[in-house]
């Protein structure tokens, strides 16, 4: 799969001189006039793709590193290190409801307090960027685009109440510890004037489902272009079979578990008997 990704990159590299030649300096200058967040500001176009569009979780799955790569068509950048453009890539997994509990001391022992339910917590969320996102664009712009952990909507009103804020940061901290939330401000690297790449590690506990990958091209604090992609994470092979049986035929699955255990017990005794 890495091989195909590399092939695609080299194809993009070949296309590069053409796109540079086509870019018009007159048009490029227009983008200096304050563009609204989210709207393409100029002629630059960002193209991107993901190295692996389908991830199959099998018994040897220990997490996977995916490559997000792309290029800036009609790039204005004259030298590689110029820093005309910034790229922010947002990888987002399916939402899931989560109960967050805080332990409290009751009569000397630590007890789970009443839980708060958050209905739409992303199962996975990663922000990858060329620089710290706050250096790339204003808080307002980032908020409008929904970029960054501080602006994530967990499906629960959290403004104002300082207690709620503590819960919210606990959720982010716990998710970060599990590598299910990531913020990496040096993950996106430009190669040459218009080609960029970023890798993101999906940990072993990634939820299954459809993931979206939004790649934003920023110029002077505003979005110049946006590109979208997606990938599927699914269980495959034996893992899929077991998972389906467990949830669709739980009684048969339970019986199977007991049967396997009994047979293993019999086999173990037979192999070790001393007669």
């Amino acid at each position, binding site marked *: 799969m890495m091989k195909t990704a590399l092939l695609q990159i080299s194809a993009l590299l070949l296309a590069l001189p053409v796109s540079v030649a086509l870019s018009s300096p007159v048009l490029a200058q227009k983008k200096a006039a304050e563009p609204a967040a989210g709207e393409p500001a100029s002629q630059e176009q960002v193209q991107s793709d993901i190295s692996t569009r389908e991830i199959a979780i099998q018994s040897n799955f220990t997490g996977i590193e995916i490559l997000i790569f792309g290029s800036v068509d009609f790039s204005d950048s004259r030298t590689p290190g110029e820093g005309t453009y910034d790229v922010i890539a947002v990888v987002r997994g399916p939402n899931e409801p989560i109960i967050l509990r805080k332990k409290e001391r009751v009569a000397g*022992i630590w007890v789970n307090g009443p839980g708060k339910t958050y209905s739409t917590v992303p199962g996975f969320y990663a922000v990858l960027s060329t620089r710290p996102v706050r250096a790339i664009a204003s808080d307002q712009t980032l908020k409008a685009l929904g970029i960054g952990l501080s602006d994530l909507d967990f499906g629960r009103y959290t403004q104002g109440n300082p207690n709620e804020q503590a819960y919210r940061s606990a959720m982010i901290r716990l998710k970060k510890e599990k590598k299910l939330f990531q913020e990496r401000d040096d993950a996106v690297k430009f190669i040459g004037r218009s080609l960029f790449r970023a890798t993101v590690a999906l940990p072993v506990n990634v939820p299954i489902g459809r993931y979206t990958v939004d790649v934003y091209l920023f110029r002077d604090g505003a979005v110049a272009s946006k590109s979208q992609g997606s990938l599927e994470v699914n269980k495959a092979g034996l893992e899929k079979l077991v998972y389906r049986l467990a949830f669709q035929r739980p009684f048969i699955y339970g019986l199977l578990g007991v049967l396997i255990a009994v047979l293993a017990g019999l086999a173990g005794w037979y192999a070790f008997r001393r007669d």
Partner: protein
Amino acid sequence: MFQIYLPIAEISVNLLVMLGLGAAVGFLSGMFGVGGGFLLTPFLMLSGIPPAIAVATGANQIVGTSVSGTLAQWRRGNVDLRMGFVLIAGGVVGAFVGVFLLKILREAGQAGLMISLTYVCFLGVIGALMLWESLNAIRRQRAGKTVSARKASQHNWIHGLPFKMRFPRSRLYISAIPPLVIGGLVGLLASFLGVGGGFIMVPALIYLLRMPTNVVIGTSIFQIIFITAIVTLLHATLNYTLDIVLAFLLVIGGVIGGQFGVRAGQKLRGEQLRALLALMVLGVAIRILLDLLLKPSELFSIVPLSGA
């Protein structure tokens, strides 16, 4: 290397670690006639398996180790079938009541706390009593007196109860009510705590019914097969928390360890066996108690709404 992904627990674990854990618990199980769930379940949770899955999968593993353990005990004539079935009859009723209780507590959000407190109380009291008794027995033996743990002539209130049954293998002629009640209580605790319940069954049969220690171990492990099988089925169908791949690894390790455990158990004296088991039971109780008393480093915890 040797990492394997678990389809229900949704984490990747080391194959050898899980086989080893199964073997260690199986060894203890064969040696003491306990299921080992009270050790296995906390260890699984420590290795990152979600608690609900650890409980269900632990029960499934105990089915396997109990089968091979029972067969090994059977060859030595240590299983009192009649007593076993009376205990199971009570145990099945208890298991259903336990699952029902757990469901109510879960809805109130306090299942985890109640499980921990029950563990501490039972393990603490039983461990302390067993340690006291077995140390006394060892001391008396050292002093040169001949003692028998079994005082057959001693009568207590249990002998006054009706519905008397003969249990020839245990050399007992007692009412069927105490074994039924013991079976029921153990079944209740077993499903509630997600363990086989041997750590309660063994001392109850020794001290309350005065069965011979070797028959107690065989009979206890025999009835554990049935109780844990029911608990496994209930968890799989009601909570979807059984991980068959993990259970398989634990069972393979468990049945091998169990065979060595039975042999090791034969070489130790009854008093020493009981003292060792008591120390282990006390150790687990203290560990759980500390978790409740010490301030946790992370006060918050998250669980998916579905798999709570």
